[in-house]
């Protein structure tokens, strides 16, 4: 790999996570874009490249991202793209786009309005169309299978799952463990509640970084990897794709003050901590993580925003943000962020 052009996050934005946002998804997007323009003093025209992540299926409407352009602000016409993924993957393309060298500024957005549908039914459509889709395998059921694999392997207990939920503010351990199962061995507190929301950031390379902020947050590495679509072909107690993405992002080249992990089901925290080799010094999900707020399709990018905010505020020097896609942590992205060195 050739030497990397330094790229920094100079501003971040995130909406509250709504249980059911009354307006259109474009309203969530526009709120973030307006916040970013106000924070940086940039005009819309000064953001040379825009890329968003969202998913048609949340609203059951093809081309739903087209309406989001109204929130992006696409007039005069903009140089723009879209991934049908969490906004964290939009960030990955933007980060590489700035490394090409001819573009210095990028707007990155992730947004979703999951309240439009029943997420367990909607996400069941991610599985293979011919053999698994007819079974109606939804991500919560698959997460239950993954949790059972962890218990059977002796790698975690139901109390460990509940402890993750308790740290996210779900309540006392005893009360949590007394609750009934929703997808055995998962209880309600083990499953993040899907919400509506957006997250966004401005990415800058070159001399403009110093013009725009005194507290740049550098993305020193980023990578993502995928695993097989077939749960039966994978060791569900491990996440080799997370490990490979962390290595590709250079996560182990220094101590990590914090890690924001996309833990949508509590057992995933155990798997991710092990795969990343996190040490006791690393604070995991100080924000509460997705269990405290899960704006579907923005949840991964929101992890990046959380880490960037803490670094910009001087609360941390170096942190890791993780995003995931697909059932049972099938696909994982890792970004390593650092303050001024």
């Amino acid at each position, binding site marked *: 790999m050739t030497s990397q052009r330094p790229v920094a996050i100079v501003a971040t934005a995130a909406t509250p996570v709504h249980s059911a946002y009354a307006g259109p998804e474009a309203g969530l997007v526009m709120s973030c874009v307006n916040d970013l323009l106000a924070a940086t003093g940039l005009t819309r025209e000064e953001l040379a490249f825009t890329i968003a992540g969202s*998913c048609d299926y949340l609203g059951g*409407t093809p081309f739903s991202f*087209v309406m989001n352009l109204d929130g992006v602000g696409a007039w005069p016409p903009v*140089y723009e793209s*879209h991934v049908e993924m969490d906004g964290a993957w939009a960030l990955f393309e933007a980060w590489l786009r700035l490394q090409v060298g001819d573009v210095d500024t990028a707007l990155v957005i992730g947004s979703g309005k999951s309240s439009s549908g029943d997420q367990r039914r909607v996400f069941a459509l*991610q599985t293979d169309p011919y053999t698994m889709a007819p079974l109606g395998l939804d991500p919560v059921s698959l997460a239950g299978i993954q949790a059972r694999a962890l218990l059977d392997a002796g790698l975690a207990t139901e109390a460990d799952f509940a402890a993750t939920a308790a740290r996210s503010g779900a309540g006392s351990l005893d009360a949590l463990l007394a609750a009934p199962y929703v997808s055995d061995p998962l209880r309600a507190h083990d499953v993040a509640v899907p919400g509506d929301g957006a997250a966004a950031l401005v990415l800058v390379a070159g001399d403009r970084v110093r013009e725009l902020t005194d507290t740049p947050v550098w993305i020193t590495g980023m990578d993502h990897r995928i695993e097989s679509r077939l749960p039966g072909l994978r060791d569900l107690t491990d996440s080799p794709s997370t490990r490979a993405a962390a290595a590709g992002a250079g996560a182990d080249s220094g101590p990590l003050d914090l890690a924001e992990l996309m833990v949508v089901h509590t057992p995933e925290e155990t798997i991710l901590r092990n795969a990343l080799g996190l040490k006791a010094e690393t604070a995991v999900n100080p924000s509460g993580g997705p269990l405290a707020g899960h704006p579907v399709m923005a949840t991964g990018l929101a992890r990046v925003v959380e880490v960037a905010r803490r670094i910009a505020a001087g609360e941390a020097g170096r942190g890791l943000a993780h995003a995931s896609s697909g059932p049972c942590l099938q696909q994982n992205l890792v970004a390593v962020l650092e303050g001024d060195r």
Partner: protein
Amino acid sequence: MGRRCAVVGIGQTDYRRRLEVSLEGLVRWAALEALEDAGLTFADIDAVVLGKAPDLLEGVMMPELTLADALGAVGKPIHRVHTAGSVGAATAISGATLIESGRYERVLVVAYEKQSEGNATWALSGGKSGGQGAGGTFAPWIRSYIRRSGAPEHIGWKVAVKDRRNALRNPHAHLRIPDISEDKVRESPMLWEPLHFLESCPSSDGAAAVVLASEDAARKGPSRPAWVVAHAKRSEFASFPGRDPVRPQAGVDCAEALYRKAGITDPLRQIDCAELYVPFSWYEPMWLEGHLLASPGEGWKLTDSGATELGGSFPVNPSGGVLSSNPIGASGLVRCLEAARQVRGTAGEHQVDGAKVALGHAYGGAAQYFAMWIVSADPDPDFT
């Protein structure tokens, strides 16, 4: 600025109803052909980029997850692009960005649609029954173009005949109508005035793939590279008072940015041929004007003169174009890879003699998303 990127492998399936092959089989078919062309295997690929139009067309959500195995992506990065009808070209550009950034040496770009697994007109109408379909969106703008330009009605028929005749030279093409004629087009049923049935694209299944490589990797390959000398994208709002959907500003801006980057000052002369996204016949003259290849009101005259025929001075859609095959999500990538075939000299029966520089183009949404690239036989084409 950035590293050079080249197309070193091309693969595509036949475009028709493909009931005999699964979704996985379809994309793998195109990917394997592209790898073979590049003299590579899946093991040589650093990253995969997947593109397609709405997931609702097949009912598989975020299909990069389920297609990871078929595309040899397990253990690698894969990401999914969706920019409406322009997505095939946008996916190629996304792949080129990965190479130009310096991060990857070889990237596999795949785009597909399997329309036979769903109901495209339903899905393209916002998932509502009784929708107007894509033709219903574009027909009023086409009528507006005809009124504004004073073009005679036969221009649309002429484009339909030309592209279907070209398709007879392309074994991958879906529609094969040996006795196609302007009379036959005119007499076919009126679907959306002024568009007749034979002025509209078919519903096709199919997948397309390219292997993109850095300059170092490209020079090691067995095949002649097609150099990606420039690419551009532009998007604008779907509608607002004062928007010109006949000649969208995003299309004009995109072409200007593209030619500037490539060093092209006289596109009609300096580009040898073009694969334009023409799903309805009239979009040929509309994009000739909308992308600065002809002055306003002059595009239809270029078509009428025969200049855009195979053998003309500026062949458009020698492959038969979208009018002959429309696997929606793949159609933009097919335009880009057919442009690459032309400059590599491997376009077979529809080869444009001496083509050195070619344009691949796609548009999408309410004619509001544009993605284009220029490929060249020479990494540093001299346009003086």
